[in-house]
């Protein structure tokens, strides 16, 4: 069996890890391109950089047509996500309290999916890319542990399969940081919410939105979406999930 090629890259305020199980002659170069892509996305979209296009656009120093062309595209994806989640996603997640432009809820998952796309285009059919707790896998099977939001050191579930995207939103490590876009206040009705789908950009943005919905609405919403399954952990540790979730659990 070929030795997997691994790489860890510090970007976007977190670490992205790559595992390529089928490395070939072009893999190292593809990894470099994928990593460059991540840094480029960070330069354009970071709200922590005063000179990013997104910060300058937010301050009114740039118009949309002077921004990197991907800015308009990302904002369009944000609007689509908002429509798909009945307004529970927003590129202005602070609501009226803090109406700053911040498409981060879309950007990180999209960046991970883009990295995977670059590896696929270079011929890899077996790899995983993770960043900040969200994962895109290609090929498989891959075994993905879902961290227990309330019990240090425990996993609450292990999912396994092919071509999975797994995104978890929660309060465990960073405290309440996902805002209810309707109020601008932190959403606290869930300890964590995991969505399992196939394409991380959408799956991750949806997980952010659905986390803010709280458990009842979240589960109802996910049950209507055949593309994803949901696992919700409540603050008291009880779990709820969509009917199709068990088929993803490692057995």
């Amino acid at each position, binding site marked *: 069996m070929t*030795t997997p090629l691994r*790489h860890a890259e510090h970007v976007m305020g977190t670490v992205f890890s790559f595992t390529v199980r089928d490395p070939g002659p072009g893999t190292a170069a593809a990894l470099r391109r994928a990593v460059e892509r991540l840094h480029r996305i960070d330069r354009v979209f970071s709200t922590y950089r005063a000179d990013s296009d997104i910060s300058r656009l937010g301050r009114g120093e740039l118009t949309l047509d002077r921004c990197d062309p991907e800015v308009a595209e990302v904002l369009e994806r944000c609007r689509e996500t908002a429509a798909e989640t009945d307004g529970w996603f927003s590129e202005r997640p602070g609501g009226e309290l803090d109406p700053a432009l911040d498409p981060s809820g879309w950007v990180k998952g999209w960046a991970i999916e883009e990295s995977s796309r670059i590896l696929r285009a270079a011929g890899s059919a077996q790899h995983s890319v993770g960043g900040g*707790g969200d994962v895109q896998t290609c090929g498989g099977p891959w*075994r993905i542990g879902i*961290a227990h939001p309330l019990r240090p050191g425990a*996993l609450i*579930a292990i999912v396994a399969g092919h071509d999975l995207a797994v995104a*978890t939103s929660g309060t465990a490590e960073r405290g309440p940081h996902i805002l209810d876009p309707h109020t601008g206040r932190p959403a606290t009705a869930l300890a964590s919410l995991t969505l399992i789908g196939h394409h991380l950009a959408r799956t991750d943005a949806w997980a952010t939105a659905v986390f803010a919905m709280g458990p009842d609405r979240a589960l109802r919403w996910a049950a209507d979406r055949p593309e994803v399954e949901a696992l919700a952990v409540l603050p008291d540790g009880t779990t709820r999930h969509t009917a199709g979730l068990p088929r993803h659990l490692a057995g």
Partner: protein
Amino acid sequence: MRRAIVTGTATVAGVILLLSLKPHNSGAGAVSSKVISSGGSSSSSVSASGGSPGSSPSGSAASSGASGASAPAGASRTVTGSAIDTRYGPVQVRVVLDGKKISRIDVIQYPDQSGRDQEINSYALPQLNQEAIAAQSAQIDVVSGASYTSDGYTRSLQSALDQAS
């Protein structure tokens, strides 16, 4: 595959709780101490699974260098990872390996300037330690839901394991 958080291929059943042992309850003590430990003598229930297929060596393209010393060859070695700068300050781990298996991870450096850092670290670092040790027994490729504060930890751990391989 030596990377503890990202490792393995075997099978484990259904929805499981990985650890029966309690994590170190890092109330006041572990926060003020400079070392947060997991494993060691209390990890026997974790390491009881023995040498696993997930602990075979692997190559790594990780660019982080490793600095630290290995103990003489024998049953147990200690490897210190690079100190990794994070937004909040440096994070550095030290790993004890029994053969190819992690038996103990000490966080020997972590940011603790503010109350918020302490709050995060007293929780997140023991959690990550347990995850790293647990993941190799459960044969997990990758973990979803552990984010942010894990970056420096992951990189320092990776550099220690790269060095050990």
